[in-house]
């Protein structure tokens, strides 16, 4: 699939300031990625490249990335910065990756490349490569000037997935995007996904990332979703990759009148992960729901940035992100709610709760409300605390050992988010993974 492959060895960090470092290397990074890729989508990619040049990799001085030093991390983990080719995936691998009792459409990816021969489909659902759907307005929802990683993805993607759900089609079982990742020497995976849900359609999509080995790589993903009027789309994203993985995900969705979009972001492992979730509430009576759960241990660093734009009146957004942090992990939450002046009668709620299990963890949490309308109901809150020692003692006095008691409390804490997952096979799988962690004292 890859034509000329250009290897690019990053220079060792010689300059003491990170800013200088990233300006030194970012052009080389992008040039390597850009030139190594085949020439599909060239004009779009050219725009991405220029935008990325203009923005550069974010440094710790960039407000939006000040807690998440991705430039530095990329330098230290990746040695060979070029696009990842697809690796071979077997039927057996696909089968064993499925959640127990999962029934639904399975779409298989290898390093971001869609593999139709291993995938299935369903009536009312059109699955194509992006290159087969020429008129797709890529970049019209996830805009390159909004985030440098969107620009980087647009500069480097070569193809992707186009999902289109027919009008009035309600899929009974979910669509699983099974994304296998494995590279040598830490390469760049640039998945690009466009999802179009027709008016009055309904679907649940599960985006599941799996590492095939313990080697590092960088995933820079962009997902654009357009839900028609009265559409009801649920998007679950499960990040359970190896602890050397760097990942940036940009999910942007336009929500039209009377439509509903629900997102669940579950992060269980990784090295440094940044999730940007943007909901544009374009139509009245539209509803956006954002749920997140991050269970971090080791040195995992997870940064969830969410952004809701209430552009019209009578729309509603509801957000709940919860985190449990152990060892030396780090969490960042930044939730922005933007209510425009015409967006009267907006309901917007946001909550972020964290439990810290060790003295060495760091959490930065920042609710950000910008409200220009005067007749709205908005609330936000965040909590950071330890496990309730009183509750722990209470359970112990009933004969429950400390680890089980801790597990019960943490599970109850996480349960509020897990309960939002309606797909049984997925919820049971996650519950199982969490139980395992809790039994081994997190």
């Amino acid at each position: 699939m890859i034509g000329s492959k250009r290897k690019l060895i990053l220079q060792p960090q010689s300059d003491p300031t990170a800013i200088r470092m990233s300006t030194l290397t970012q052009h080389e990074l992008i040039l390597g990625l850009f030139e190594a890729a085949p020439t599909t989508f060239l004009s779009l990619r050219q725009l991405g490249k220029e935008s990325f040049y203009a923005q550069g990799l974010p440094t710790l001085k960039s407000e939006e990335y000040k807690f998440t030093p991705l430039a530095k991390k990329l330098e230290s983990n990746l040695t060979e910065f070029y696009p990842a080719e697809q690796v071979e995936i077997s039927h057996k691998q696909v089968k064993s990756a499925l959640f127990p009792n999962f029934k639904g459409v399975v779409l298989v990816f290898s390093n971001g490349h869609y593999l139709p021969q291993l995938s299935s489909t369903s009536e009312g659902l059109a699955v194509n490569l992006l290159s087969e759907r020429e008129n797709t307005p890529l970049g019209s929802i996830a805009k390159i000037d909004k985030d440098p990683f969107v620009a980087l993805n647009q500069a480097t993607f070569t193809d992707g997935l186009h999902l289109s759900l027919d009008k009035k089609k309600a899929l009974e079982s979910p669509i699983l995007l099974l994304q296998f990742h494995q590279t040598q020497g830490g390469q760049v995976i640039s998945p690009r996904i466009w999802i179009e849900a027709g008016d009055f359609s309904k679907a649940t999509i599960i985006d599941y990332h799996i590492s095939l080995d313990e080697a590092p790589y960088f995933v820079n993903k962009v997902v654009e979703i357009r839900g028609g009027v009265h559409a009801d789309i649920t998007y679950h994203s499960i990040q359970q990759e190896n602890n050397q993985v760097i990942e940036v995900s940009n999910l942007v969705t336009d929500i039209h009148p009377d439509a509903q979009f629900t997102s669940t972001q579950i992060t269980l492992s990784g090295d440094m992960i940044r999730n940007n979730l943007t909901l544009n509430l374009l139509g009245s009576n539209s509803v956006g729901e954002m749920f997140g759960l991050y269970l971090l241990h080791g040195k995992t660093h997870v940064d969830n940035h969410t952004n809701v734009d209430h552009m019209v009146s009578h729309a509603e957004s509801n957000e709940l992100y919860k985190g449990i942090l152990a060892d030396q992990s780090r969490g960042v939450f930044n939730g922005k709610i933007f209510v425009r002046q015409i967006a009267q009668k907006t309901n917007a709620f946001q909550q972020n709760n964290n439990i810290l299990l060790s003295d060495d963890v760091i959490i930065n949490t920042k609710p950000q409300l910008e409200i220009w309308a005067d007749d709205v109901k908005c609330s936000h809150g965040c909590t950071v605390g330890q496990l309730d020692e009183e509750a722990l003692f209470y359970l112990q006095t009933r004969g429950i050992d400390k680890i089980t008691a801790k597990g019960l409390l943490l599970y109850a804490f996480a349960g509020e988010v897990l309960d939002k997952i309606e797909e049984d096979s997925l919820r049971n799988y996650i519950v199982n993974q969490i139980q395992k962690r809790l039994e081994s004292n997190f």
Partner: protein
Amino acid sequence: MLSIKNLHASIEGTPILRGINLEVKAGEVHAIMGPNGSGKSTLASVLAGREEYEVTDGKVLFQGKELLSLSPEDRARKGLFLAFQYPIEIPGVSTTNFLRTALNQVREHRGQEPLDAVKFLSLMKEKMALVEIDQKLLSRSLNEGFSGGEKKRNEIFQMAMLEPVLSILDETDSGLDIDALRIVSNGVNKLKSDKTATIVVTHYQRLLDYIIPDFVHVLYRGRIVKSGTKELALELEEKGYDWIKEEVDSTATI
């Protein structure tokens, strides 16, 4: 059953218990009374194994074995139960779910088979009747949004489920109206046997109208300063604690 000898305990360096001696035998009900701040709740907490308290001296034997080195869960498994003065609210954990985990851990310790869902439910129904508690309440998050009376009934319900040999009721009467007091006391009385013992910690005498004590001890400044029978409780009700304080304080200054 329980033998407390010269028990000293402090919290953050401040001594609270200053030499408690107490013998409790199977079949007995002991009431521990005393003014606020005398150390009543501390005694209950130390016996249950709360970590914030540091035992600085003395020892406690429970059924002939050293108690203080055991974890709270092991004390519970060996048959010690503390009904909390302020039962904890735990969102997201239902009473049913938590109690089944607890009971099966206790049963495992006693070498009994775990109860399956059906047997657990029928046992639960039997014990629910004792404290007139509704099943709907038990499927809700533990104590969350419960009234004071409901919380205390839930404590006694848990006690009934776990079948302890020694129950310590820490100010179980606080926050109860007369009806709830009667229901809770009835539950406690029905659970009494000649093989079990009860320690009732209370500030007021009125609970002792329902749960009749064999012995009454007055705790003041971290020591048991007076012991007697149920008549002592009535005397305290009538005269308050001041005469005991005066008695103790005057001897202490000599």
